[in-house]
């Protein structure tokens, strides 16, 4: 008698983020996490392929779909030794699909309208990119918002950067004119742009102090927009992004940041920088796996499934030897 009596696995069906339910944007409710893909190319990028990122991220996320599969027990963070109760995950996480491709103006307008609608319903938009050139549109859709950024290129002096800037020097050698202008505007006080460069060498250290700094920076009267770029990671861990970083963070650090940000009420989080068509370091696309794994901590924190790393326990057996 064959040992495997069950049918072969099924991979067909709607490809949604973590196999979540699909919804129309009008049905998004308060407290929901609404996934939205922006499959657009950035024609100014050095390589084509950013439009493939939303699909790549969804495909990778299916790996974590089992977290809400009743066949399995609850997931446990093996490092924290802590159970994660995921009841309700698939009621509050939903996938709206991708924005339709159109002209550049139409893309910006559609994204702005979608973000306004999701935010207006009291939900958090999880935007799957691609290129980061639409980030400004998201900011425009969230008036007077604060932007917290992991990786990517610095845009504004009032933003909070949780990772070193891209290949910048204390002399602002790589900053754009607009960024230099931002820096001048904040002259006379310790600007966040300056702070970010100070953090450039402490990406993996003293996170607790930086989290305190984040709390002080955060103004809860304003919407919060989180930008999560693949370049926050040490490039040797993924090699999939167009803008490599050789002094980036490891997964654990990024996970802690996203978990902390997930404690706030966030209007939108935007994933950028992934180019699945880049050769990377193998057929297994490590970059998208890194992003999806890290994003999971944000999703859990938003939904109240947060992991308390401080209460780390060790195996009973481990401790007894």
């Amino acid at each position, binding site marked *: *008698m*064959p*040992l*495997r*009596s*069950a*049918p*072969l*696995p*099924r991979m067909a069906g709607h490809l949604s983020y973590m196999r979540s339910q699909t919804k129309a944007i009008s049905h998004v409710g308060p407290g929901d996490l609404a996934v939205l893909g922006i499959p657009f190319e950035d024609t100014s990028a050095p390589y084509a392929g950013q439009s493939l990122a939303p699909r790549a991220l969804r495909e990778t996320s299916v*790996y*974590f779909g089992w*977290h809400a*599969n009743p*066949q*399995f*027990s*609850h*997931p*446990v*963070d*093996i*490092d924290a030794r802590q*159970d*994660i109760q995921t009841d309700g995950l698939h009621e509050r996480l939903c996938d709206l699909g991708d924005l339709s491709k159109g002209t550049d103006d139409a893309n910006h307008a559609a994204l702005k309208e979608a973000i306004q609608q999701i935010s207006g319903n009291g939900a958090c938009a999880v935007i799957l990119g691609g290129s980061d050139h639409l980030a400004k549109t998201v900011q425009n859709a969230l008036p007077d918002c604060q932007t917290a950024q992991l990786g990517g290129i610095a845009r504004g002096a009032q933003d909070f950067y949780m990772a070193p800037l891209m290949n910048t020097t204390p002399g602002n050698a790589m900053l754009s004119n607009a960024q230099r202008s931002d820096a001048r505007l904040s002259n006379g006080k310790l600007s966040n742009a300056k702070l970010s460069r100070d953090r450039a060498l402490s990406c993996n250290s003293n996170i607790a102090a930086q989290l305190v700094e984040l709390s002080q920076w955060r103004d809860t009267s304003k919407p919060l927009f989180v930008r999560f770029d693949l370049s926050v990671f*040490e490039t*040797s*861990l*993924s090699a999939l992004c167009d803008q490599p970083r050789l002094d980036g963070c*490891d*997964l*654990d650090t990024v996970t802690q940041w996203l978990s902390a940000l997930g404690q706030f009420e966030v209007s939108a989080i935007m994933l950028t920088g992934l180019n699945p068509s880049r050769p*990377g*370091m*193998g*057929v*297994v696309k*490590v970059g998208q*796996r*890194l992003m999806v*794994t890290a994003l999971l901590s944000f999703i859990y924190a938003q939904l109240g499934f947060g992991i308390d790393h401080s209460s780390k326990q*060790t*195996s*009973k*057996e*481990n401790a007894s*030897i």
Partner: protein
Amino acid sequence: MTVVNTTFHSPLIQPGYRLFDGPLCDVADVTAEQVGVVGMPSDWTHSSRLGTRFGPDALRRATTLLQSMRPTGASFDPDTDCLSMPANNWLVDCGDATITANDVDATTQAIAAMTEALTIAGAIPLALGGDHYNSFPACLGYSRGLAKRAPKARFGYIQVDGHLDFSDRLGAWGSHNHATNARRISELPNIDVRNMVWVGIAGWVDGGDLASIEEQGGLVFSANDVHEKGTEEIMRQALEHAMQGCDELYLSIDIDAMDAGYLPGTGSIVHSGITPRQYYDLLDGLAEAPLGGLDIVEVSPPLDPSERTEFLAAEMLFRILRRFRTRPVSETEAGR
């Protein structure tokens, strides 16, 4: 008039690679204390990324190429002050087990028959995966062979892995697949979960599986434990736990415990996993352990065109087989 060509062609012998460039040998001819290699080129029991069916061949090629860089008596290991030896007597390659597509039972019995025969002969079966399910039939044969060779003997078990593989069932794949191999091994008659240890577990695991292991006395070390406590201490504790009341050790090496940034050519990658140096140090910690059998699994060459995955795995074999493949430097040699 027809001319008959009678030119003699010698038969092709030993086409392809053997592990460590060792000799081919029938399972029935393997003798005690030898390491007998069994290929398990099957990935029918993996649930996602395939390609490990090419693993045994890749390991044979990589170890042969590495061996060629360490010629007889001329390769000095500064870590141990030892010289390498050729694989002409301590290791023999018994070829691949017969894999029957879509018939897990037939494949299981074919692999188990080879490792059982090797164990009865007093040899050490070294099984090359294949996906991690194949670890179960390899250990099944070892367990059967041990029961016949030493009926009262018991064995401990260490699994270096990014995952527990302790599920009872995995969705549509049923009860025998790459997520259930450790559970199936725990059900064998001459092992107890109290003597089972996992090293290198990363990320999120199934809470029920973890609780089941720990409630039964099994021991789990995460990748973070390895980072924090160090490889030497972890493997000391692991070996001590696994060998309590046991006579031999079965070791299962799943290469996916290594961080995917270093090793992408495997089906189920992990992040924040252990580094190559840590992995090698862990295996060094077992080099003198009373190995009864072992396997190395989840090498998937199609997933890593750079080929470095198979060479990382080959180096793992060099490490764990150190006491077989090296000898101390003699006084004469040292005096040169």
